[in-house]
């Protein structure tokens, strides 16, 4: 590749790093297929969302500052997780409402951070080649991706372009029951919500349930029965591309 190949920095998210590395691998491959060179800043850990959501603002701020510094040298940041992207884009600037200098830096990071499918469709203008499988998939609109980032068409477009047939479930944007620590603080409610989500997904008849969020993915996998596979968009697109 020529030295002018555009570069992106990968924010892989802590859940993908430690529990779902295949999602990170697929993300790197997709970004390269779209013509980008990928950097992986090794100092990255967690965006701080779990602490923010539990009310630990000071701790969340420490992690936010760390992330802002770490990604400051890069032009573009891409993450395979809607909720973590929303944390950076929407909540980081809020966290520094009383610190103008940090707020400006937070806004700069927010402005160059993208969720994976958003980046591929809106920035790279890329779409996978159709592998014409006709594979039936149903897509789970994760809450923060849909309601805070207003993204939902992007993953569907990528799936359709790759040759999948996207069938809609009844309430695609009904919460999967994860909610971070909620899932173990209130396991009875959380699991009942997940069971309902999975019931709707199964009723769609699609054998593959796709999401862009590592949190929703692990939550739904935790209760899914035989016959339905729950997978991250990046892995699905990579597999279809390989096939």
């Amino acid at each position, binding site marked *: *590749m020529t030295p002018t190949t555009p570069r992106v920095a990968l924010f*892989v998210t*802590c*859940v993908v*790093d*430690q*529990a*779902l*590395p*295949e999602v*990170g*691998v697929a993300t*790197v*491959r997709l970004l*390269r297929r779209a013509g980008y*060179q*990928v*950097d*992986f800043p*090794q*100092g990255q*850990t*967690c965006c701080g969302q779990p*602490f923010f*959501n*539990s*009310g*630990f*603002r000071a*701790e969340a701020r*420490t*992690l936010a500052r*760390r992330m802002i510094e*770490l990604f400051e040298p890069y032009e573009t940041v891409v993450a395979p997780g809607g909720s973590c992207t929303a944390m950076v884009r929407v909540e980081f600037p809020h966290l520094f409402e009383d610190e103008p200098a940090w707020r400006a830096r937070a806004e700069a990071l927010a402005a160059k951070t993208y969720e994976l499918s958003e980046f591929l469709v809106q920035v790279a203008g890329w779409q996978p080649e159709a592998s014409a499988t006709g594979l039936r998939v149903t897509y789970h609109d994760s*809450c923060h991706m849909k*309601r*805070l980032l207003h993204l939902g068409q992007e993953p569907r477009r990528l799936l359709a372009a790759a040759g999948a047939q996207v069938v809609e479930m009844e309430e695609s944007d*009904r*919460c999967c*029951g*994860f*909610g971070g620590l*909620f*899932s*173990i*603080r*209130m*396991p*009875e*409610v*959380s*699991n*009942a*919500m*997940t069971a*309902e989500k999975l019931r709707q997904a199964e009723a769609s008849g699609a054998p593959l349930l796709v999401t862009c969020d590592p949190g929703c993915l692990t*939550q739904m*996998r*935790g*209760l899914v029965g035989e016959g339905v596979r729950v997978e991250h968009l990046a892995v699905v697109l990579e597999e279809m591309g390989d096939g």
Partner: protein
Amino acid sequence: MTVTTLEFRQAAAAAIADPRLQGALEGATGKFRSARSAALAELPDADALRDHFKALRSATLARLAEHLETFERNAAAAGAQVHWAADGAAACRIVTEIARQHGVALAAKSKSMVSEEIHLNQALAAAGVEPVETDLGEWIIQLAGDPPYHIVAPAIHKTRQQVAELFSELTGESLPADDIPRLTAVARRLLREKFLAAGLGISGGNLLVAETGSVVLVTNEGNGRMVTSLPPVHVAVVGIEKVAPTWDDAAAWLALLARSATGQPLSIYTTAITGPARLGDPDGPAEVHVILLDNGRSALLGGTFEEALQCIRCSACLNICPVYREAGGHAYGSPYSGPIGAVITPLLFGLEEYAGLPHASTLCGACLDVCPARIDLPRLLLALRAEEVRRGLLPASERLAERAVAWGMAHQRLYQLGAEVGRLAAKPFTHDGYTDLPPRLNPAQERRLPGLAPRSFREIWRSGELDETWPTPFDSRPPPC
């Protein structure tokens, strides 16, 4: 009353384990949801109306005292007596005192959440006044001795069978559950007797209109009109936040209220009460009292939580909430359930006592999608959680754990070390991507927890395997540790 996380869980688990209750919840909320969407779609521009309403509600709250004084002046000019109640006990005292002055033994009530909030029925009973709820749903839960299950539809948890049993007990007849007309006829007969005998009519108020000093009631059963016109004295107890400066503002309010609540363009009855009956009026009470209830509301003005006062109690957020739809209304331990209940209950009745409620949410944001006043309930829940941390209300074990993990996450080497230790510790329980702890130890109960991968993404990256397809230079900067 308290609602800890554990208490919420236990009450929710009971509701989840009851398939009949789950069916009733989903049936009722589902009907409300689709009716709401259809009704909003009929408006030329529902989003613009909601934006307008949001702006209107925040502007009103910014000058609340002024609007309330205007209301008081105009209501008094129309002949009503306006009282200010700092808290629930004060409001109850005012009502029982009015009852005493008129020698009232029986009070007919129309549905009022504020009266549930201040436990008015208990206060009336203690003062020797029999309160009778005349809204069918409220009457059913009064007979059953239950708190309301839903802000708009308080008895959605009761089956026809249970209602037939309650009515049978009351009448001494054996009433079949499948004979709805007969059940309704019983309610009508018994309640009519009460209306005619009541010396006092008590209502809430969906809104107050400052420019004319009017109390507006939105009902579907007509009982509200009877309560406010048959008895010689009418008392309306209304939260101070429910004021619309003008009738134009009230029009926007009314255009959204019934649509958001039940999907009706307007409810069957929208009643404006402006003072007592005037000379020549065919009916109406001789005396009208309006009690303006604070009960913790004014303390929220001007702060982070003021936005919660924009609520018009339409219940749209309950009907869409995936937590409410599983957990049901009683888990919230408050007349106000669902997302708005999880916010307003700790604010009005104490965060210490209701510390579990701000956690009864995944922060999914579905409530914000439907709220006619666009109240950012997830953000308010987050702020309440932060307030709990600030006041040290979380268990010490959790505080310690959160801070320790956050500290570890702030140091790349510790983060990696933590993950490696976790990997080793979980190894005996890790199978095909899951961590299968012994069931008693699994905090997620029957849900399988994700396992840590044998190799982290960063290990794979560092190994160079990913270079094969593309030579990517590693980030050469030292990690900021």
